[in-house]
């Protein structure tokens, strides 16, 4: 086994390892990143004034966050644009040095950029390519295997397997710049996984893809996590990615964690309602739905209600007794709505 310390013996620039529970693979403690950005008013006068005196503002992109992710966990990292998701991922992959705080991934301090660490992690950046734009994808795959020191026959086997699973056989000989977005994204995922990383960071892996391609990539990531036992941290604007893949989510905004826990818990805590939808054989004919709950939608033969959880059984009984019900469904509110509640500050912080 290569030089892969466990948490209790993790190398650290300060000589002291982070204390982390058994099997924790990613740990952040008071992790903070601030950027100093220049700013000025608009207009030529302000531009001239800026020649003499530059003004800077300190932006706290990540403001002292704490979390622990165990081996094999798949965690959704959610938040609006500029919340600090990508900055956090960049610190955890060693691309950025934190301003303060500590973190370990696989027991390593990422920003020390030790070769043994970099060989065991990978990051897929939806907006940034790891492939050589000018050459066929196959060339980038072969270079990747060599750069990560993957044994030739083992690398070939992994490559064949990934090519089949991701269905990119037709892309191998095409110049990367000529691939469609979906093809390129599958190639990006392929190249990121060729060295079989133990920790995978996915930053918007389905951005801009159609629904079928999103579903395909989701299935693949879930499968990789299951087969390899890899730890996965995922950011995505598509809630479907997160609900399909992650039981646990971390919601971040303005650099601060607002929620860290099971998606189901979040729904329970923040949405004490169920959404009841009925399809009818006849018209509603002025039936007083309002007595049963908040009416979210009302048609001639269909209605959707928001009903407090403790009244769901009673409401269903009333609907079945009073109306010619063809179909009736009870569901949790959409995750987007619940997350929006957290971000609006309506939800209790973690």
């Amino acid at each position: 086994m290569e030089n892969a310390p466990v948490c209790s013996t993790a190398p650290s620039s300060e000589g002291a390892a982070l204390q982390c529970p058994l099997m924790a693979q990613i740990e952040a403690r008071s992790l903070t990143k601030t950027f100093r950005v220049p700013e000025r008013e608009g207009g030529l006068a302000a531009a001239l004034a800026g020649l003499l005196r530059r003004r800077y503002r300190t932006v706290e992109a990540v403001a002292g966050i704490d979390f622990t992710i165990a081996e094999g966990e798949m965690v959704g990292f959610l938040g609006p644009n500029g919340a600090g998701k990508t900055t956090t991922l960049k610190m955890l992959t060693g691309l950025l040095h934190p301003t303060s705080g500590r973190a370990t991934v696989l027991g390593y301090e990422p920003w020390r950029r030790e070769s043994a660490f970099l060989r065991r992690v990978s990051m897929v950046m939806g907006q940034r390519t790891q492939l050589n734009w000018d050459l066929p994808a196959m060339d980038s795959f072969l270079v990747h295997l060599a750069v990560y020191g993957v044994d030739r026959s083992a690398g070939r086997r992994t490559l064949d397997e990934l090519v089949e699973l991701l269905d990119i056989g037709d892309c191998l000989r095409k110049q990367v710049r000529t691939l469609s977005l979906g093809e390129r994204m599958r190639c990006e995922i392929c190249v990121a996984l060729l060295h079989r990383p133990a920790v995978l960071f996915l930053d918007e892996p389905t951005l801009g893809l159609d629904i079928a391609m999103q579903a395909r990539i989701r299935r693949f990531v879930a499968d990789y996590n299951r087969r390899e036992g890899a730890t996965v941290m995922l950011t995505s604007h598509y809630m479907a990615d997160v609900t399909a893949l992650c039981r646990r989510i971390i919601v971040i905004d303005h650099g601060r964690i607002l929620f860290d826990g099971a998606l189901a818990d979040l729904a329970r805590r923040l949405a004490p309602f169920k959404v009841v939808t009925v399809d009818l054989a006849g018209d509603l004919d002025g039936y007083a739905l309002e007595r049963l709950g908040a009416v979210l939608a009302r048609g001639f033969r269909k209605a959707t209600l928001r009903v407090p959880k403790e009244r769901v059984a009673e409401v269903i009984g009333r609907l079945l007794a009073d109306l010619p019900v063809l179909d009736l469904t009870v569901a949790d509110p959409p995750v987007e709505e619940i997350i929006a509640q957290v971000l609006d500050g309506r939800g209790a912080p973690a």
Partner: protein
Amino acid sequence: MLLRSAFPAFLRMSLATMFQYRGEIALWAIWGVVYPSVAMAMWAAAVAGSPDGQTIRGFAPRDFAAYFWLTMVVGHATTAWDVYELGYFVQTGQFSPRLLRPVLPVWQSLADNLAYKLVTLAILVPIWAVIVLLTRPAFGTRTVDLAAGLPAVLLAAAVNYGWCYNVAMLSFWVTRMDAIGQGWFGAGLFFGGRLAPLALMPEALRKIASALPFKWVTWFPCETLMGRLSPAAVTQGLINQLAWIALGLVVFRIAWRLGIRRYSGVGA
């Protein structure tokens, strides 16, 4: 060691990329011939207009032809462009994927550099041969000059590449690197002796040139190959080249460690 498999792979990829864009690469290579050719023609004209019409400070037209032909070849062997490229990568965030790899990004840049120099030889060697036929340079090169001059060219390439990369690392602190790149390139032309042999420069400028790395990148290997330097001067020059390389490595280690802390991965 990872680099043993990584560097040849980078080199193969760089060569493949060069083959993909052979037209652009050919134009860059030909551009490298333009400067020395202009200088060669200019100094030949200057000799014709000199008081004796034969030489300028010991350089006859065929000496100038030899000197500038050598600056052409040495210029190609020592060229480096990271001061532009690294700045672009850092500014656009394209540096991030390279940083994720378990080998230093400088190795990929070095492979690109070597690949360019190798591939363009196919275009440049015939051009260089034609220039020799046309200008009939007076090389005066002996075996002993070749024996000292070839290592001097290799060391010159190392000096220029290392210091160019060191200057390129300013891109961790400075957003726009184009002006710095132009300044670096211009200083190389002037103080390296690519516009005029350093012997023709005023004493004050020669002193400044001696304190900079450029002299050891172009002037020194060219003069060595022409057999114009004494054995002591050649030895001293090789020592100076080694000293610049050693200093460059120290600066690289420090600048890399500090620079990477500053990297903000914009747009990535």
